């Protein structure tokens, strides 16, 4: 937990003027969000001292990994004024595809991973085509793709997926390397990559500009369509990665693997300060948003509250977070 928090903020301290909250209000937001997540971790530790046991923390990280991966993709798409409702469907489709290989040989794991990522990229590219070339609103385009994928998946499996997974897939999520679960390493890698892309690469800076003002971006000659398309393709690939991690975690595949992830991811991105109007969003914020949701869930479970109560709390948290950002923005 604390590992990703510190890593995502690591770039910032030390740089001169980092605490200039006036000109960088979003940094203050990040710090507050991180503090809030830390508070939740503390609360969890007080409620149940066993929470901080390394084994348990690893479990929490493994459990948080799919949402963290999906929220990264959702953030990229939200930055270019889009939404990706097809992410959970991609997760499940990749999971079903993994069983379609019907192999127990661990040597097939890289093949399954590559095929899954390729499928995610293909779906992302199709979303991008619909949004960019056909001018369909992202909400509808990805909604329709979600429905089509769902139909294709069910038609293929006939309702109940069958087939075996290689043992090696489990290592993808809960295998431990250097003290951290493999899935956490995957998240760190993906988050680091996305953060570098958004803050240090030309294409990433252009993506943010395209999101904040597409017309201006077009006028200064930026490849608007390509930047938007890239966001959707990356989003599809990250959804596929989440699907692969989930398959390894759960061990069995069903047609609804990852159900609800796309909406949780939107909530997490908004918690992390991404604006649906585009041009605003950060990797650190989104990961913190995802961790916040996971922590809230964990604490509710510890308190012995039913899952239903967690839904109510999550809804209130989403609205409250969005309201906080909106009110601050309008001042």
């Amino acid at each position, binding site marked *: 937990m604390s590992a990703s928090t510190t890593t995502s903020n690591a770039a910032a301290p030390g740089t001169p003027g980092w605490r200039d909250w006036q000109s960088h209000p979003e940094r203050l937001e990040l710090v507050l969000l991180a503090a809030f997540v830390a508070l939740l971790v503390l609360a969890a530790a007080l409620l149940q001292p066993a929470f901080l046991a390394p084994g348990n923390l690893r479990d929490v990280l493994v459990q948080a990994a799919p949402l963290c991966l999906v929220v990264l993709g959702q953030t990229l798409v939200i930055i270019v*004024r*889009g*939404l990706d409702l097809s992410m959970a469907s991609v997760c499940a489709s990749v999971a079903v595809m993994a069983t379609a290989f019907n192999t127990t040989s661990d040597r097939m794991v890289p093949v399954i991973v590559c095929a899954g990522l390729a499928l995610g990229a293909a779906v992302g590219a199709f979303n991008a085509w*619909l949004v*960019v*070339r*056909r*001018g*369909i*609103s992202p*909400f*509808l*385009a990805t*909604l*329709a*793709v979600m*429905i*089509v994928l*769902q*139909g*294709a*998946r*069910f*038609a293929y499996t006939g*309702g109940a997926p069958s087939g075996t997974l290689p043992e090696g897939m489990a290592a993808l999520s809960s295998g431990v390397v250097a003290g951290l679960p493999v899935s956490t390493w995957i998240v760190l890698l993906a988050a680091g990559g996305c953060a570098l892309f958004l803050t240090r690469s030309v294409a990433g800076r252009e993506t943010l500009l395209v999101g904040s003002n*597409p*017309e201006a971006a*077009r006028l200064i000659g930026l490849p*608007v*369509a390509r930047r938007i398309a890239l966001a959707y393709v990356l989003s599809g690939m990250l959804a596929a990665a989440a699907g692969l991690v989930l398959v390894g975690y759960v061990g069995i595949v069903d047609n609804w693997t990852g159900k609800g992830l796309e*909406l949780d991811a*939107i*909530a997490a991105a*908004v918690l992390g*300060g*991404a*604006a*649906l*109007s*585009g041009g605003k969003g950060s990797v650190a914020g989104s990961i913190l948003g995802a961790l916040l949701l996971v922590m809230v869930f964990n604490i509710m479970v510890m308190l012995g509250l*039913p*899952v*239903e*109560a*967690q*839904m109510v*709390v*999550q*809804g*209130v*948290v*989403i*609205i409250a977070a*969005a*309201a906080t*950002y*909106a*009110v601050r*923005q*309008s001042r």
Partner: protein
Amino acid sequence: MTPVATNPAQPVARAWRPSSRVPWRLSWRDARVVLAVLIVALLAAGAALAERFATAQNLGNVLEQSTTLGIVALGQTIVVLAGGIDLSVGAMMSLAGVLFAGHVQGDAARFWPLLAAVVALGAAMGAVNAALVNRLRISPLIVTLGMASVLQGTALLLMPTPGGSLPEFATTLTYASVLGVPTSALLLVLLFALVGLWLHHTRSGRRVYAVGSDEHAARLSGVDVFRGRSVAFMLCGALAALAGTYLAARTGVGDPRAGTGFELSSIVPVVIGATLLRGGRGGVLGTLLGVWLLSLLSNLLNFLGVSSHVQWIVQGVIVLVAVMLVSTGRVVRRAAP
């Protein structure tokens, strides 16, 4: 964050979008004609392909089965026309059904007062949605997403598994028919007609269109934008609650998951009916035709033995085709969802 629907001063973001100009794009008025033609074509094809398709019995079933979706989609249409979206309708349906069946408990005397109370609760929740969008300037998508979570959780807390019961006459009523036409279909047409008349011939109805087509211009012209949006969300909430009670009456129990999926499937007929998702264009007639087209198609595919899984694919493709064909109109305000 700059809210999507409440920021009027967004730059015109059209030119960057190289969407190909298809010469045969339809205006939303023509789209309704196309829908009607498609429905007739489906009827003809169905009569030719399946023996028992074009019977009064089966068509009555189709109409009956489309009522729930129709009521929710009607509410969704109003909100979409006002430039919003309501993802909480499914959860509202579940909650309404649970409250209704749970408190009526088979007592006929409590039926009507509770029906009114539950529908009023739906309107109240719609008012909360609208207040959050209006006052806090949060995008409707996020507000109603959060609201959906709250309402669904509440429904499950109140009644974890389907329960409650409704008086005999309620179920009979939903299955009754007048001169061969199901009463539920008559109710649906009546609701659509009322809302259609309201939208086109009253001040508050026109306000909904004004808010949806250009909020900034509407405000400058002295239109009470907040009120227009509030009325739209309240009607949508009330209609979702009504759909929930209808479903409960039809099945005889309150199911806390009865509305699952309706939040997205209610948008499909709206879009097929050529109402633009960014608001201000379209109408309820298109939605009604869209609902019927979808029900007919699914019924016909069932007759032909096509699995419901493949029907999803068909539905998705229909949405894409519909959106690609319908003209996006001239004024493009924003590129956000």
